[in-house]
């Protein structure tokens, strides 16, 4: 952390506390301002009842987000949080007896927290003990839990005793203190106690720098394992709370909470990647996001604008959290001023005389390098890429063989391979964009509505005419460049975290798509585009040929161009990349533009494939686009991964889905199998034992 280098002794205790908790303090201030705005605009004054409603409204997200914060502080990532909430909800709703006179609040709270901790232990085992990547383990867990949840309860219903509601939604002190705030307060107190223990210190240490933590003797495995168990307990408590609030069970209730949970963490001042921030800010973050509902209501923002307004509020909240001398935005401003001064003084590198200032290398010239040390064999040179890319292909082979045995008509059926490639083509294109973003250590969550808006605008402009493709395609692609530029600009120059920036962009694009289409996307794909995606030349659909060209270009782009080397450089170490002269800003913006263009191409392809565009057509592609990249051997924190590996991930997941679709297994079983196979596929990717 940067504050370590500043002279601590000259800082008063108060100032130090302020600096350390800046994120949380700013989040609290933003929340206060929002409360004030709502109070000022709404008809009546803010009463205790309003406060009570607000406190129960945000409590589920706040509790779950506290758990997520702890995971993120340790350098992890947990996608199973929403699924745990659903599972606890249905377990409680199906477990309680409607005939029983009362229910023990303590017992059922214990059951909920216990279920959450059990899931956390499952996650923790694979992540801490087997050293697998958190994102892919928790993603698999998410699928498995969604299946299990549907097995427990396949539709909304069940019964949660009103006693639970009376306890959790009532007043701790009548007229003064609502119970939800007390519950959150107790959890935070427990956190403060934990933070003060050796475990708390170890947690921050592991999140800041795992290797150093291990070097000073911290049991990294144990800390990581405990983190997921504790976080699971928090999700469990959130599940208990939502059960109390709704009085019933719904197998889908928790899933939509996932993305906003990350937003709450980041808005609350916790840095993704670990080591900085804390749950207090997160609680404020969760309530800020919840307040948005009330603000939209009092401002009477039209339905079509609501996602735009939400996205903007998210960006503004994130910006407010980064106002300081050390913020990226301020640094960029100072750098721009310095560059301008240098330009006026005529000492910019580009203004200097061009002479070769490279150091002369000793020894023989480049010419006879080959004879001096023979190039190692191909498989040795690419050993690392092979190690991480191969598992996906091995699993693909297994899946194809199982398909042949179970369903028949696979290996020798050209139609099977053609379908596999056509269905894979969407994710294969997305994998380049998302994969490149992930290689730089970022994440692009704006993929769904970039796909959606591209498809809708293209279908609207083309409207069945091949000639219109000539101008519609460039328009859509240019628009995608602009979307990517906006993402990159916000991330690079305003210093907004990629998750928040792209999440906000996603919402804003959704609003634009709705406004553009007035809710009903018009138009349909032209015959040529449809031919391209669905016709057969012999046994091959034309898009398969494009896919082959695309793969070659993608491999060359990441492996053989300066752009590709810069991407890997940034992912391996931002500071090192900057010091070695990489134009980090420009490269990052290009990376996000690439991702947006890939998403737009998928939008165009999907429009051709389905013959029309629809709202929400990209929604099913966000998590898979991340999953294939990681299953293909890339490191979610950046710097490692090969496009061919990602392609293997795409083919594997698509083949698996085709196998499951061919069976008549119930959906719940399919979801569980899908999760288990993904988990199994990445077992081989686990990190080597630290030396």
């Amino acid at each position: 952390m940067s504050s370590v280098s500043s002279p601590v002794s000259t800082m008063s205790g108060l100032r130090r506390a302020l600096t350390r908790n800046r994120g949380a303090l700013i989040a609290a201030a933003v929340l206060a301002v929002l409360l004030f705005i709502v109070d000022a605009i709404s008809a009546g004054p803010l009463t205790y009842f309003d406060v009570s409603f607000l406190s129960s409204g945000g409590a589920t997200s706040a509790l779950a987000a506290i758990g997520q914060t702890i995971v993120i502080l340790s350098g992890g990532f947990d996608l199973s949080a929403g699924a745990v909430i659903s599972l606890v909800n249905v377990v409680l709703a199906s477990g309680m007896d409607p005939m029983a006179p009362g229910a023990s609040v303590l017992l059922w709270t214990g059951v909920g927290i216990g279920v959450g901790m059990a899931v956390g232990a499952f996650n923790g085992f694979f992540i801490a003990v087997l050293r697998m990547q958190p994102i892919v383990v928790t993603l698999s867990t998410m699928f498995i839990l969604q299946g299990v949840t549907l097995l427990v309860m396949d539709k909304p219903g069940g019964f949660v005793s009103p006693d639970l509601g009376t306890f959790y939604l009532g007043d701790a002190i009548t007229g003064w203190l609502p119970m939800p705030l007390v519950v959150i307060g107790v959890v935070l107190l427990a956190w403060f106690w934990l933070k003060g223990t050796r475990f708390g210190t170890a947690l921050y240490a592991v999140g800041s720098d795992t290797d150093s933590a291990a070097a000073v003797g911290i049991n990294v495995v144990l800390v990581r394992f405990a983190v997921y168990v504790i976080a699971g307990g928090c999700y469990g408590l959130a599940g208990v709370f939502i059960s109390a609030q709704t009085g019933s069970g719904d197998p889908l209730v928790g899933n939509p909470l996932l993305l906003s949970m990350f937003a709450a963490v980041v808005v609350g001042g916790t840095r993704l990647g670990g080591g900085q921030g804390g749950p207090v800010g997160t609680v404020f973050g969760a309530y800020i996001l919840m307040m948005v509902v009330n603000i939209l209501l009092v401002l009477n923002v039209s339905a079509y604008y609501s996602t735009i307004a939400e996205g903007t509020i998210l960006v503004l909240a994130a910006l407010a959290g980064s106002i300081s001398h050390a913020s990226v935005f301020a640094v960029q401003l100072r750098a721009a001023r310095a560059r301008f001064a240098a330009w006026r003084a005529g000492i910019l590198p580009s203004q200097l005389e061009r002479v070769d200032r490279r150091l002369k290398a000793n020894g023989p010239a480049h010419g006879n390098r080959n004879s001096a040390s023979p190039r190692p064999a191909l498989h040795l040179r690419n050993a690392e890429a092979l190690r991480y890319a191969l598992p996906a292909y091995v699993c693909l082979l297994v899946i194809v063989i199982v398909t042949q045995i179970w369903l028949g008509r696979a290996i020798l059926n050209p139609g099977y391979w053609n379908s596999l490639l056509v269905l894979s083509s969407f994710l294969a294109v997305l994998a380049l964009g998302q994969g490149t973003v992930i290689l730089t250590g970022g994440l692009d969550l704006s993929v769904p509505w970039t796909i959606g808006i591209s498809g809708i605008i293209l279908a609207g402009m083309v409207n069945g005419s091949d000639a219109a493709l000539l101008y519609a395609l460039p328009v859509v692609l240019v628009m995608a460049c602009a979307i990517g530029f906006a993402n990159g600009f916000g991330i690079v120059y305003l210093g907004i975290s990629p998750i928040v920036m792209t999440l906000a962009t996603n919402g804003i694009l959704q609003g634009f798509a709705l406004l553009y289409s007035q809710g009903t996307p018009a138009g349909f794909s032209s015959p040529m585009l449809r031919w391209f995606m669905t016709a057969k030349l012999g046994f091959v659909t034309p898009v398969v040929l494009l896919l082959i060209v695309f793969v070659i270009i993608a491999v060359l782009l990441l492996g053989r161009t300066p752009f590709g080397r810069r991407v890997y450089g940034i992912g391996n170490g931002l500071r090192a990349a900057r010091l070695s002269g990489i134009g980090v800003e420009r490269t990052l913006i290009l990376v996000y533009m690439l991702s947006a263009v890939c998403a737009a191409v998928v939008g165009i392809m999907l429009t051709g494939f389905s013959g029309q565009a629809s709202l929400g057509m990209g929604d099913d592609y966000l998590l898979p686009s991340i999953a294939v990249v990681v299953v293909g051997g890339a490191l979610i924190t950046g710097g490692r991964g090969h496009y061919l590996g990602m392609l293997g991930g795409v083919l594997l997941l698509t083949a698996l889905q085709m196998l499951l679709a061919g069976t008549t297994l119930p959906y719940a079983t399919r979801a569980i199998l899908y999760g288990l196979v993904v988990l199994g596929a990445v077992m081989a990717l686990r990190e080597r034992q630290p030396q």
Partner: protein
Amino acid sequence: MGIGLKVRRLALLAGMAVCAFGMSAAEAAEKHKIFLSMSFIGNDWQAEAANMVKAMASHKSMADKVDLQVQVAGPNAQRQIQQINAMVQAGAEAIVIFPISPTALNQVVKNACDKGVKVFAYDAEITEPCAYNVHIDQEEAGRVTAEWLVKKLNGKGNIIAVTGVPGTSVDDLRTKAAKEVFAKYPDIKIVGEAVGMWSQAVARTELSKILATRNWNDINGLWMQVGCFTANSMQLEAGKKASELLPCAGEGSNGGRIQMLPEGTEVEGAASPYAPLGAPRISYASPPYSGALALKLAVEAIEGKDVPKTTILPLPVVTNETIKLCNEGSWAEMKAGCNAFKPSLVSNPGWFASIFSDQTPEIGLNAALVGQPEN
């Protein structure tokens, strides 16, 4: 477009919204304050339903009675709970809801009822007894379509089932009812089952997956909650002739309805596969006018009229015998029996065509397309 521009534009919009609010608050003193809490707005059905509600509220019989505010809760039940609370606090007389969950809203709805607010749920159901519900009988939908398919196949054949969103009551009721029918005929075999998420696009990818290891010739019929239009298109792509299309029991998309018209019918704007094919079909739908009807009933309830707690809408069923093309799509024309719209008027084949109700003469085709009421 830079962020700065977006931000500025938004600030402007927010400012305008504040002004609009200030004005309408003064004007609306006499009007009934009604809120609409929608779910996720990002799909075709929801947007169409929202347009129809808007049109209903702006119809001349309603405009001076109703002050309607529309809010979106997204897919998140938790947010809808808070939204309903906020609406009650803001002085709603009635709240019209597309419930994200049939059960999760019960407590907040009960709380609203206790404060004298009329709560109307459309399309899906709220199980809290004090709420008014406006929807079709989902079990009937599953049963009627399955029975049609069995009859078409003479009780024998391999079928593919494409369901909706798993874990929702609507999907559960429809699918279970249909499977009960199929179970009565031992020669009907469900050889493939996919989760279609009520989306034409998803139906296409799922069917492609199933057909990777199967052949259209092995299949005799399709039961789909959404996706018959897509299934017919895929059969044409696979080289089938229009006369060889498989019987398909499924959704009420306009594309599917147009395909049901006898092959060779002259239809303005038609282009294959969005064209008359004489496809053997039964077309049913959860009609998107239910929200508009709920709003109308809510106003009646506020005005003291007696409104039943549950309004079961007649299941809109169209078969090849009853399919009829509309010229303009006015309410009067639909009342005379037309139920499909020209592609030149509705260019999106996935658009839901079951928009007619004899209880809502205020809204016709323009209501569903752009939110304009009938005169």
